[in-house]
């Protein structure tokens, strides 16, 4: 089974420390969410992982049934970068054949696989079209196909869903789940937190080159996710009675009859519910944990404020 590990990897450019002792591991079949604000060091970490640039310190360890290695073979990696494109004047099938060839897939095999994937993404009729003739969504699908055509053991996807319509997003999600089930390790970086929540088994959160959190989604929510109460009423109600309470961290008026109240860390929702008076004209009451989006914003902003 494929395994990947980063051990205390660091990288600096001149005086600037871009990645600082980052460590994580991932097993085959896992979708690992790789999160961080812009400039956090994600791209540099990914480039180190792929051997495009070398780390100043630390190791990348690649494990297979046969043993260990400190270099991941390029033919085992599939990569869809955030800044991506394709040779505009080249034909779809030629580009896919060329990129698969670089991953050591035989010409005939590459062609057959490419046609299968194009068929799956309803692009078979465009196999002889030039890339410049395709829509943005279509070329994004081609780029995705190029990253998986050689059946990589490690698939690194940077913002694969940006610019995709909901139907295509669902198609991508289904394919990613299927690839993971087949044993591919997927390193997924995206700012679309709802999709990350849906897909990822574990999350690695990086900020200013350093690890902030590494664990499963329930663990991150347990650690950073406070409770949130959404309360809507049928008639005018004095919300100040609730928003001024000592265990309320923050509140936001959604409309005249609806409020969202965030509870402070370690405050249980039951504690809040007991203070709502009996006369409150409740229409709807919802208790939830903070979303990954909220946690991300909170950590990113909180860290910046502390520094």
């Amino acid at each position, binding site marked *: 089974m494929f395994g990947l590990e980063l051990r205390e990897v660091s990288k600096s450019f*001149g005086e600037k420390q871009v990645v600082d002792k980052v460590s994580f591991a991932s097993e085959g079949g896992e979708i690992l969410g790789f999160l961080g604000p812009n400039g956090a060091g994600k791209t540099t970490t990914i480039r180190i992982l*792929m051997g495009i640039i070398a780390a100043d310190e630390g190791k990348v360890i690649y494990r297979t049934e046969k043993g260990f290695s400190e270099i991941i073979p*390029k033919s085992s990696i599939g990569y869809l*970068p955030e800044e991506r*494109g394709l040779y*505009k004047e080249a034909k779809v099938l030629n580009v896919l054949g060329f990129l698969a060839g670089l991953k050591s897939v035989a010409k005939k095999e590459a062609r057959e696989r490419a046609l299968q994937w194009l068929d799956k993404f309803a692009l078979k009729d465009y196999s002889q079209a030039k890339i410049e003739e395709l829509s943005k969504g279509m070329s994004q699908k081609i780029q995705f196909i190029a990253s998986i055509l050689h059946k990589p053991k490690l698939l690194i996807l940077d913002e694969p869903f940006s610019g995709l319509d909901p139907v295509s997003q669902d198609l991508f999600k289904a394919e990613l789940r299927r690839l993971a089930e087949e044993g591919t390790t997927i390193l997924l970086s995206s700012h679309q937190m709802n999709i990350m929540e849906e897909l990822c088994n574990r999350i690695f959160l990086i900020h200013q080159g350093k690890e902030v959190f590494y664990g499963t989604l329930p663990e991150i929510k347990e650690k950073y996710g406070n409770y949130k109460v959404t309360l809507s009423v049928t008639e005018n109600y004095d919300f100040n009675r609730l928003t001024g309470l000592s265990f309320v961290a923050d509140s936001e008026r959604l409309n005249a009859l609806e409020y969202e109240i965030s509870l402070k860390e370690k405050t249980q929702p039951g504690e809040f519910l007991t203070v709502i008076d009996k006369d409150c004209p409740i229409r709807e009451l919802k208790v939830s944990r903070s979303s990954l989006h909220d946690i991300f914003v909170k950590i990113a902003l909180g860290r910046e404020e502390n520094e």
Partner: protein
Amino acid sequence: MSKTGKIVQWEVMRNLHNKQFIIGLFLTPLLIALFAGVPRILERLDKPETVRYYVIDDIDALETLQKGISSETIILRSYEGNREDIEDQTKSDKFTGYFFLQEDFWQSGNLPMFFKERNHQAERTIKAVLGGLLQQNRMQQLGVDEEQVSYLTAAAKLEMIPMEEAIVPQANEIMVSIAFIVLIFFLIFSSGSMLMQSASQERRDRMAEIILSSVTSSQLMQGKIIGQFLLGMIQLLFWITISLPLVIYILEFPVMQAIMDTNLMVVVMFGLLGYLLFSSLFVSMGATMEDMQSAGNSQGLVIMIPMLSFLFISPVVNNPNGMVSRFAGLFPITSPVIMILRNAVTKVPVWEIIASGVILALSSYFTIKAAGKIFRIGMLMYGKTATISEIFRWLKYPD
């Protein structure tokens, strides 16, 4: 096939299917032919106009004049009719004009020539031959006999005898060497600008990172350099194939013999090393540019560096063993061209050829290493053209 080989194949095939490349392949020789070759071909096709003059010869000089002119396009015909009718006869026979060879010509040296239309070429030829006849006649009048005349009017000649066989190369060898220099220049500039464009386009198309997830930056750079070299060679061979028969026909030049006489080893060694040096420089600069519009910036000026050789061509031709020539032959930026040129115009000592080759090879090696570093970092830097200070900073980064 190796990964470098796959990139070479992709670069070549992509360009061979590119309309711009194909149009350039056919259009360039057509343009060259149009501006250089066609006037000469037209000149050959367009037969010179035949001019005809009636001559009344009273001094028995016509036969000597005709022999002296020896041109099929200038016809001098003795007029046998009435002198008063010569003008009407000239007009009716559609002759160009007429003139009289009379006794007073030997004294005055003046010959009235009556014309219907002027032909300067014919007039110059007739004047030159008449000048010789006049000189000869006057010398004879002064008592100098024919033998003495030819002795007195003989022109001086320089007979060049090389002290050693290879000391002075043949003129043909110089011509072939100059032709090779032109071809190498073309290869460097044409492939160089295509290389710059290719690297810059890959960066702009955001392909670099995808490719670098499959190959190393050195493989990518090597693939591009070799690929563009092959494309340049394809262009050259195509153009040579179609132009060589024309050159042989127009210049009547023994091309194959002259190539065999040239020191091809020096041409190939310096040509290839020079290409490696400049192409690695160009591809790395292409990797630092967001688009070719940036070619106006400092990076774009890099493509002018090979032009430095032009500064030395005249000093080398005039004094091929002088200090300037020797320096230019050893300096790696000028040596690819200058050593080929020096080797054609003089016998360059073997140690100088070896020293120059070693300096050029080492320079190419270090340039390729530095270019590899610039290329690797430049290709991954999206969205802007790197500044010169940034490029120098990259050179300090570890490998």
